């Protein structure tokens, strides 16, 4: 298991655990980012942050701070 932010662009993985406090991660989960969801890291922004990921056929951007707390395998 490793953080989502350690994937390289183009790499795919499956969300294992979301270590963001429950009261803050609601919207993220409503956007479909759940344990078991396949994700692809698309790219990092030119300044290194945020990251762009692809899940459930759409593109979403998150900060590295959050991506660090999303464990994938």
């Amino acid at each position, binding site marked *: 298991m490793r953080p989502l932010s350690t994937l390289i662009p183009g790499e795919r993985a499956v969300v294992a655990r979301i270590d963001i406090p429950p009261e803050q991660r609601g*919207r993220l989960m409503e956007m479909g980012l759940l344990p078991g969801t396949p994700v692809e890291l698309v790219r990092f*922004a030119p300044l290194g*942050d945020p990251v*762009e990921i692809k899940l459930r056929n759409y593109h*979403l*951007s998150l900060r590295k*701070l959050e991506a660090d707390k999303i464990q994938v395998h």
Partner: protein
Amino acid sequence: MKPFTVVLTGNPNCGKTTLFNALTGLRGRVGNYAGVTVERKEGSLTGADARFPVTILDLPGTYSLSPQSPDEQIARDILFQRVADVPTPDLVVVVVDASNLQRNLYFATQVIELGHPTLLTLNMVDVARDRGHDIDTDALSKALGVPVIPMVASQGEGLEPLRQSIRSQASSPGTRHVIPREFNELPEAFGREAQAIETALERHFPHRSRLAAAEALLLLSDERALPTDKTNTDGNTNGNTANTRYPEALIEQVLSARRRLEAAGVDWRSTAIEARYARLFAIEQHVTRETPPPDELLSDQIDRVVTHRVWGPLIFVTVMALMFQSIFWLAQYPMSGIEAAVDALAQWVGSSMPPGDLNDLITRGAIAGVGSVVIFLPQICLLFLFIGLLEDTGYMSRAAFLMDRLMSRVGLHGKSFIPMLSSFACAIPGIMATRTIETRQDRLATILVAPLMSCSARLPVYTVLIAACIPQRNGWPGLTLLMMYLLGIGGALGMAWIFKKTLLRGEPPMLILELPPYKRPMLGAVLRQMWDRSKLFLKRAGTVILGINILLWFLATYPRSSELQQEFDQRHAQWKQAASNPPTSAESETLKRLDQEEAGEKLRQSFAGRLGRAIEPALKPLGFDWKIGIGIVTSFAAREVFVSTLSVVYNVGGDSENTASLAEVMKSERRDDGRKTYTPLTGLTLMVFYVFAMQCVSTVAVVRRETNSWKWPLFQTVYMTSLAWILAFLTYQVGTRLGF
């Protein structure tokens, strides 16, 4: 007869607005919800049977029924029948982006569970097909239990079936009956608790019992759905009115249910979300046939360039530079046209009316004053056009993606970038756009700094001052203008950083930003939006600015001193006696100076002159004289009034021999001690002042509405005005020391 109310709802970027425009023929009315500046779009269905009128209401886009921001809250409150002036929806049309089915169905199924008569429009089926998702509409309809209409709203495909369906429901309202449906397979313990809460809700709120099941689920799983006193202080309407307020016993029941679930090891926050997505995944598998698309999608190809490490920032800077350049370059032609028209109107009115005070009031006070502001309409239209295009193509969210790192340095959000960029046009839409920012601190910080971005109302001020004060060579005018914009940006970022470190300290906000596929902009809709926004500017010119100008004319004209008049009449008579016929050029020059002296002396004696001189001590350290003081005072309500004030103060327009432009008049203007008034340093100092000063009642009013308190707009006005004074002071003092 009460019209049949259709509510349009769906995720952001699902094509809802396109559909709304198509259904209402671009004639929707745009307004705000009572008490909040969340845009409210309402229109009549075109082609509806006259006996059965249909009203269509477009809700703000939202990802779920657990709102994170004020605009999402309005959408939820209307669907939950909590907004007093919006009737219960007779039909809910959920717009779903077919190319992003699962996530769109998350919200759609939440809406279906509400129990309103619901219809699902599967939009952008063409995009979905290109991406290899072939959706079986009938199977989807069966799985969801509601009619599904496939469509391509931008091409008009599928519109007729939708209209037909709306019309037939509007004309036979008795035939609608809804079979309650749920899209969660909940763990038994969770289901039991939800059931108990549902029963309690039905007992307390019998008039909206059809919502009870969905509301129970939401109350149990969304901690913000329970209105507590805390959630009510952040200036948003919680829909927490008498008819929706939950009784203590019910709140206690929900809280204890959550505790029981926690004790049993059930995560009450995520259980329902996971259960719903599990079901949606199964539905999607069942209704779509996937074929992998042959090539990389065009949108992804574009993104590889536009968000590229090197090309991305370069393209971003180029787009911004092109935008501002073309605003000036393209606007100059219509602007000179408007200017000529205003002059012609003033002259025509002036010559076809008997001379006197009324003539003067109309030509100088009303026409020249308002005209000097209306001239800027082309620039403002262009600015709104570009912003509309950036939004509509999807580039705006890429800009937020690119800029987020910089914004996070000052403690803000990539999402704050969009309101700040819109504030270049006008702080009002900018401040309204902060509704998409979830956390209160970030939203407030953005609201507080948004007016520092140089808005279109400053353009007239900058333009006139640059023309009058800055050397017109070597690209100085453009460079000065750029400097002012950069100063505003720097000021906004700096102040945001300070606010986030002090007053509005908080967790670094989470960024959850969707990057929708690029699309071709709908020109009609963009133009329509441009016009709606520009109209506000015109309306302001026709009301606030006209009013101020008329008032100003009185202040600048009265009280009249008969001694002064006599003195100048005498001197005019002397000149006439001494002058040859026709007068030599030296003699004409003397007359001109005499006229100027007379106008200046009259102004000095007027109320406006006294006002200007009264505040002169505060402005002297900035190098401003009392005439500029008049401009600053009158433009307190709206920045662009500064320009029209100067044209009244310096007596431009109206009298037919003197058609020199305002900037020309300003160039020849002298101080009481004979030095030129508008030196480059004065111009620069004034511009710096205008970069930072609040000077806009409309912004104050909007901030008041958005924050629901007087505290923030007052604080904002005070901090901005102080900052303006201090920085203008520094500019002037340093400039003087350096010998400018």
